[in-house]
């Protein structure tokens, strides 16, 4: 289910503009585990631009085929099953892009990602975005945006969050936010949002590190 959002972009082959921010975050030569990697566009960019050693996990068989087609290594499976095969601290970056909202228990996977990754890069669509709020306030309907295009009954996005909720979750779970980028994502380009991101940004990218090891990897 996680790929349904991704496949919107996987047809055009180009890297979605917000993904470039994630690529820029990753240090060259790193190991990367992309959870809900879709057709592998981000992994391919990381491999090309950062010589990263990438692998992904993906639920959709169509997307798995796309990954193999790109020469990428991918595990066809359900993220809800967790990351039991991975040791603590065994991957430089665990990446979750636009994925946590489709999980049954996003909290558990985020904590797992924090355990496995020296750092985690997690991006979330922001349900606190002003257009979303206005739809609910003035039309009284479940909001739909280009980023959240589904009807209430068929959406794979069962655990939507806001930038404020997510930030609070990180604080409560000893995940230190060491970097963050707030964006309004367009078709071709993204605009950075600096003021009142929970209102003006429709997308947040967070780089996290588990607090208890924040000092050791600096």
């Amino acid at each position, binding site marked *: 289910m996680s790929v349904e959002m991704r496949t919107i972009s996987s047809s055009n082959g180009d890297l979605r503009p917000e993904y470039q921010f994630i690529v820029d975050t990753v240090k060259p030569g790193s190991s990367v585990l992309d959870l809900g990697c879709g057709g592998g566009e981000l992994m391919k960019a990381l*491999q*090309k631009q950062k*010589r990263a050693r990438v*692998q992904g996990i993906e639920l959709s*068989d169509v997307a*798995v*085929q796309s*990954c*193999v*087609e*790109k*020469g*990428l*290594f*991918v*595990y*066809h*499976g359900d993220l809800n099953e967790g990351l*039991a*095969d*991975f*040791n603590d601290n065994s991957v430089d970056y665990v990446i979750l892009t636009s994925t946590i909202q489709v999980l049954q228990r996003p909290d558990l996977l985020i904590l797992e990602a924090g355990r496995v990754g020296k750092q985690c890069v997690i991006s979330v669509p922001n349900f606190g975005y002003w257009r979303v709020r206005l739809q609910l306030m003035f039309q009284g309907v479940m909001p739909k945006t280009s980023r959240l295009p589904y009807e209430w009954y068929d959406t794979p996005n069962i655990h939507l969050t806001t930038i404020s909720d997510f930030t609070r979750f990180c604080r409560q779970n000893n995940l230190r936010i060491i970097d963050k980028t707030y964006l309004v994502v367009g078709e071709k380009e993204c605009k950075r949002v600096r003021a009142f991101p929970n209102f003006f940004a429709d997308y947040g990218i967070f780089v996290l590190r588990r607090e208890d090891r924040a000092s050791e990897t600096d």
Partner: protein
Amino acid sequence: MSSEQGSVGIVETQYRTFAEPPNHLELECGRKLGPITLAYETYGHLNSAKSNAILVIHALTGDAHAAGRHQLSDRKPGWWDNMIGPGKAFDTDKYFVICSNCIGGCKGSTGPSSINPETDAPYGLDFPMVTIGDMVHAQKLLVDSMGIDQLLCVVGGSMGGMQVLQWAKEYPDMMRLVIPIASSARLSPHAIAFDAVGRHAIMADPNWSDGNYYGRAVPSRGLGIARMIGHITYLSDASMHTKFGRHLQDKACPDYDFVTEFQVESYLNYQGDEFVKRFDANSYLYLSKAMDYFDLSQPEGDLRKALSAVRAASLVVSFSSDWLFPSYMSKEIVSALRRNNVDVSYAEIQSDYGHDAFLLEVETLGRLITNFLEYAGPRSSDER
């Protein structure tokens, strides 16, 4: 698939003999076997660097004839003809494909129906118990004899997949890629149970006579029943519904008798009858035993440790309705490889065909394999 697909055309099974006196092959059971003949076929051309060879290993009752036809009049081509040929997944315009038979069988390689050089009579039950490891050791002699230092890929389904894994464990430098399909690192007790019932059917046939039936009436009733049991395990509930439903065979009303009533019965009878024309009952006993004994995690006691030497990038494939080699068994392999930090892709193909899917899901499986060979094959996949 992009290019025109073709056939490898007319092919011929070839034979090579190894471990001739004074040499022999040391078997895992402690006994010695020699000389050993292996039947094999090849398709395509070995390049000058000898770097494009792919070893294909067949399942329990398969043979070396994987593609093309022996004669134009052959009704059916080789067992994996839809995957091997010009423009197909194993593209013979690019790759040199070797399909090897295994010892213990009856398709041209040394097995219980071969002549025992010590007695000048067929081995029968004097044939030593051979294992998946022994089969692979013999195949290694074949590949060595071709002057190939490293295979591009070793691939196979079911029992062939077991041999693929054994290859990767024992000869980690001998291949760049492995593709075990619908396979397992150890046969489940569930599958061992079906094998045991099949063997009981053969051994209960009075014609079997402790395996000494060569030159006399063969235990075709027992072998036919073993095959029927096998076929049940290769299908799925869904595929049986689709293929047969509850339809009666050539009749509108049941006869209320113990004759063949349902289409599914007729199908199994047919499969049993056809099989006994082409397969040796003793070979069925030996090969099914080899599968039962197979446990890649031994002697290390742990699959991850047992696979710690494996270096080949792997594509592991399972099928959703396969209850003989269920997906969790493939995931076990993937899990061990992942924990060893080996590059591995895993795909579970949605299919109603059961275990047989590895021969039938040509399009999905073919696409995966085409791309895996194409893109994971080159040493520096980053450069693409």
